[in-house]
Structure formats: C-alpha cells, structure tokens
C-alpha cells in the first residue's frame, strides 16, 4: 500500500472538510484510488462518479499531469507517490 495525493478544486473542498489535498493510501488503478476516497468521503466521490462508478462527463482527472481519459480511464495505473488532480471541465453557459 502506497500513498498518493489527490488535489481538489475549491468548489469540492467542502466535501472533504475543507481540505485541498487528500493523502490516500491505495495502490493499483485510478478506480482503486477513488474507491478509497469514497470510503472516507462518499459525498465527494458521488460528485465525481455516478452510481455505476463512471466518471461524470464534466469531471476531468489528471494523473501526474496526464488526462486519465487519454490513458485507460478509471483503469489507468496510478504509480506510487502520484499526484491526482481533479478539475471540473469548461462547460456551461
């Protein structure tokens, strides 16, 4: 089990007691990391994924700067010590 860091945008920090950085002990895929996030912060997780576990359309997640959708999506491997950045996409009117 290794630690990764999840960076949250300001608009989501209220779902994690105001924290901007979460240290998550998880190894494997992005899905595994988000499952660990969900265990501690279920309301944060459902802002990011629907009940089927799919990433919401206008949520982007970058693993060490790379868009997970351009890699393996939620199956993208997350290396030890990775920085996972959550960013709402540009959308809306």
């Amino acid at each position, binding site marked *: 089990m290794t630690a990764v860091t999840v960076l949250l945008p300001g608009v*989501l920090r209220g779902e994690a007691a105001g924290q901007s950085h979460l240290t998550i002990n998880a190894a494997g895929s992005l899905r595994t990391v988000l499952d660990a996030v969900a265990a501690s912060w*279920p*309301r944060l997780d*459902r*802002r*990011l994924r*629907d*009940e*089927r576990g*799919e990433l*919401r359309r*206008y*949520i982007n997640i970058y693993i060490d700067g790379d868009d997970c959708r351009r890699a393996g999506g939620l199956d993208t491997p997350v290396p030890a010590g990775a920085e996972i950045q959550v960013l*709402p*996409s540009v*959308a*809306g009117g």
Partner: protein
Amino acid sequence: MTVLLAIGTSKGLFLATSGNRVDWQVSAPHFPMTSIYAVGIDQRRGAPRLLAGVDSSHFGPSVATSDDLGETWSEPDHAPVAFPADTDASLVRVWQLTPGPASEPDVVYAGTQPSALFRSDDGGRTFALVRSLWEHPHRPDWGAGFGGQAIHTILPHPADPARVLVAMSTGGVYRTNDGGETWSPGNTGIRAGFFPDPFPEFGQCVHKVARAAGDPTRLYAQNHGGVYRSDDEGSTWSSIADGLPSDFGFPIVTHPAEPSTLWTFPLAADSERFPPDHRCRVFRSTDAGASWSALSAGLPTEPFYPTVLRDAMCADNATPSGVYFGTRSGEVWSSRDEGESWVPVAAHLPDVLSVRAVEL
C-alpha cells in the same frame, strides 16, 4: 399571512416571500449554478420541509432538504436517489418531488430521468427504486422526448395510500391501485399524433397531469397536443380543449379546493412554441374545462414570446388561491385572486424551471 414561493431555475433556487402576495422579497440563489427542476414544500410536519432536486452539470444530481425555510440545507453522504447496481442505470435528473398522502407523513416520491419512480420513507432524505414500475414490461418501449425520458408527474391519492398515478414523457399515464405491486396504463382517449396509431395503449407524451382537489377521481392533463379531463381517475379521458386558443402547452394546475377550477398557459403549437398571438395570457376554467376565460390583467401587453415549462406554474393553498408562473426568460408572476390580476414577483432570473407556493 405569509406565502412562500419557491422558484427553481437553471442556475439555482430562489425563495420569495410575501405577506400580501403583491410585494415580494426574493432571496439570493440557493445552490447557485445548479438546475432545480424539482422543488417540493412538505407541510405535513411541524416545520415545513423544503425539498430540492439539485442538478449540477459537473457534479451530478442530488436531493437536498431544509427544515428551516432554506436557512440551512442538508444532504446525505450517500446519493439520496440512485439506481441499484443490477439495473445498470444511472440517475440523470430528478424531475419531481411529491409528498405522499397525509396518512403517510414520511412518504415522499421522486420522479426521475430515466423514467423511474423512487419512494422515500424518511421524509425525502433517502429514496428507494419502485421496482415494480421499473420492471414493467412496457418500459423498453417508453421513449424520450426533447427533454429526455422522465417521470415528471406523481399524484398520490389523497386518502388511499395504495393508489398513485404517474405520468411520463413519453409513455403516458400509469396507475397503481395496490400500493405499487402492479401498474397499468391509463391513456384511453389521449391522442399521440406522432404514432401511426394515434390512440395507443401507452406511449403518449403527456406533459402534465393535475388532480382535482376534493374529487380525487377527476384529473386534468395537458398533453403534447390535447387538453383532457378524466372523471374515472385516468381510465378514460375526453378533450376539454374547446375554448382554448391552442391545445398545446406544458403546465396544468388545479385549484386547491374547487375541483372544477384549473389554469393553463397555452402555446401556439408544437411547431410554434410561443403564446398564441404572442400574448401573455393565462387561461382558466371554472367548469371543469367546459369553457375557458383568458386572464391577463397586469401581465405584459407587448408581444410576448417566452415559454412556461411544465412545472413552472402552480397554485398556493390560501383563500382565495394564489396562482404563479415563471418563464424561460426569468420572469415570475403572481396572482392573489385566482388569476384575475397579476403582479411581478421577479424579473431577470435565469430560466424558470419549477415553482411551488404555500401559505405558511
């Protein structure tokens, strides 16, 4: 008196209050930058409970509740409305939040996109899928309208908790008389002009259904083309469109006490979604749809183009009844005399999606 008017818009929920239904105080938006397609005000408990379907384009749908008139809101950690894993479905939006009958003060129903009915037994905090309707053999044939495929109307019987009516676009009206064990379509007489057979058993695009107060067997429906009344709780329907300038529109609203009084806001046609003659007019019937009167005193007199959506019109429970509507151009109007005269509540809001009003 104090009347609370909840105004759901495409960018948040505004709460307006008035002591005379003429002068209104309108709050700043609650849940800014979210769409509030569904709002409910549950007066079956000591403090009224506000229910809001909060739909974020980024962060998904949810339901929040407030027991202090919007001073604070609460939302459970886990999704209050969510499809079970075996359905392989996910919630797109909550379209309707409806308190159950008075005899079941903790029951609240939610209608959703995709078309499903959810039931809460804790006052709207958490909901469970009503599987009997989800597993209905007709469901694969229910279609999607422009707004998506959704259950947008839920009418619990006021005295018999076993009887509930829902309406969906498309699909039409379905009813249970056995507490949700079985559901049957109730669309006989409602036209579906977009099918080769214009009178199918189901598949209609019913835009809204309202139940008559004091006569729960009487229902009124605004269809996608057609305005109807049922006197047998949805088994059969007959047209009441004569006397209206158009049979197209979205909302239909019943009086809180008088079963023969109802209001609607027609649009010219499916292919011309402007008010008829570009005039801002509410139409009222006081004889169960046998005749209609145009009401416009106080409403704009210049050419008027906005739409009033299916849940953007309502009546309060005061005497005489107040009537309210909001437009997609962000105007909200109120009448304290059952539609005879109108005053503005607010202007320049985002698109109005839903309104609900009660006397506190």
